[in-house]
């Protein structure tokens, strides 16, 4: 059968797909290219320079925002991953779970509601409770909306796993905790790892909630970048953005690779 008569082939899809990937990547490339521009006006190219990276790395406000973001993301990742792990174990493995479907919906609730609604609702809650500490506010809110992102990969991993190895462990007189630690956890680790990575990225990336809940001392990276954008585009901002794009791409690639390897090693697949 010649290609021309292949009925499953639609003409023009190849060029369209190439155009599509250009569309996905050219805007990011534009930021990267301009970050090396010597000129202060972003759109006018005058020469190659690394000076904006120097000034970005010496920017104290940027470093403090980065530190805040990393602190919040680290705590929120640990909290949401632990909560997601225990919820996933209970929902998939627990016996006689009442309202199993509803419990799952509760864990995934942050995905169903517009983030801005949750953000202002949490803002009202914190001001009624008089919780003024920006870090505490952000850690609580981030832990909540990161939980479904940690939950979904762990749940998928647990669901696809057979009980044989755990039963074997129990038959060899391992108690429940030993079985969990030595058999279950290593088996679902790829799911836990990619869940934690996603939670971390989602927390680092968040703008809407952080912007509303942040107080003076708790400016996160996206909130700081927003204030820079508001002040006007600058090549230093492009340098910062380039470094962040690079960091996200590396982290996301690591998470996806581990998740992919996990599916391949999964005894069920």
């Amino acid at each position, binding site marked *: 059968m010649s290609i021309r008569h292949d009925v499953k082939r639609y003409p023009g899809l190849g060029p369209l797909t190439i155009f599509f990937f250009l569309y996905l990547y050219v805007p*990011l490339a534009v930021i990267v290219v301009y970050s090396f521009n010597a000129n202060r006006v972003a759109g006018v190219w005058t020469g190659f320079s690394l000076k904006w990276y120097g000034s970005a790395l010496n920017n104290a406000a940027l470093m403090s925002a980065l530190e805040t973001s990393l602190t919040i993301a680290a705590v929120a990742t640990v909290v949401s991953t632990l909560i997601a792990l225990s919820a996933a174990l209970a929902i998939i493995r627990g016996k006689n779970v009442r309202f199993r479907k509803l419990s799952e919906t509760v864990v995934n609730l942050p995905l169903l509601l517009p983030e801005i609604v949750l953000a*202002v609702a949490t803002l009202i809650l914190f001001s009624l409770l008089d919780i003024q500490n920006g870090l505490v506010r952000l850690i609580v809110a981030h832990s909540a909306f990161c939980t479904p992102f940690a939950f979904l990969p762990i749940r998928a991993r647990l669901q696809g796993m057979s009980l044989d190895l755990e039963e074997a462990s129990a038959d060899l007189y391992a108690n429940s905790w030993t079985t969990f630690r030595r058999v279950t956890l290593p088996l679902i680790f790829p799911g836990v790892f990619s869940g934690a990575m996603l939670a971390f990225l989602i927390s680092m990336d968040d703008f*809407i909630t952080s912007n509303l809940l942040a107080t003076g001392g708790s400016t996160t990276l996206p909130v700081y970048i927003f204030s820079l954008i508001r002040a006007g585009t600058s090549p230093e901002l492009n340098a910062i*953005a380039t470094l962040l794009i690079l960091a996200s791409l590396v982290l996301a690639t690591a998470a996806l690779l581990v998740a992919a390897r996990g599916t391949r090693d999964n005894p069920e697949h």
Partner: protein
Amino acid sequence: MTDSALHAPAGLERAPRARFWHDLSFWGLLPSRLLMGFALILPIFIIAAVSVATRGAYGGFTWDFNLAGYSQILFNEGWTGELEFTPQYLLIIGRTFLLAGATTLICLLFAVPVAYFISRQPASRKAVLVYLVTLPFWVSMILRVYAWMIILGKDGTLPSLLEQLGFPAGMSFMFNDGATLTAMVYTAMPLMVLPVFASIEKLDGTLIEASHDLYGDRWVTLRRVILPLTAPGLVAGAILVFVPALGAVLEPTLMGGGKQMMMGSLIQLQFGGGRNWPFGAAIAMTLMALVMLFLIATALRAARREVRP
């Protein structure tokens, strides 16, 4: 599973293990219930209450029942307290729906052919292409919007390019609905391609061949075979794109400028500089109700589809 049940009769060695799994279902779910109860469900009840509270004189609110927050969506209170109809907030709600709908449609128009093309590639290349679709999604949202500010803005890439081609200098494509839409489509695209790809990939190729054997041309096959069979994936993608698009904040704030607001940016304004919490809460409740209606409608449609043979 049944094998090992033979080795270990129920009620003997198995008893403590069974209790562990039983306890697990309670203790395992407790942390998530506490966290979601405190950080999500309680705040939603509070915001519902605030939407019918009275605006405080210096920001904030007092707990007096008042429907002013909701009536302000439609009416403007005159000097003497009479209500006159103002369409400005209805226009914002309308714009929100139009832009979110347009975003969903444009994403679908691109996602279906691209996902179809990717699904027809050899396995190794397919994995790489899917990875490349996913990747931009993990770049910070604010940076993906910022990229379009550099491209479309004053002194940006596109105006500079057009200037070299002989168009007048100083053109700007920013601060209008088109700019907002451009950024919304760009940020949402990966969310659409992935579910659409997942369902197109599961499509049975022999059905396409059967359609051609029955003299259906490519267009008829697309319309009568491919699209109906992949509909669940298209609907899933549409939900994933449409719902967050209704709550968009960054795109209208940065690309639309101060005037071309959407519901999300309007809500944010009420809790920031604008400072009318009951009104902001009323808009938030409206947005949430619209999202819920949309989700329930799609769930009902899906249920009806399953019942029908």
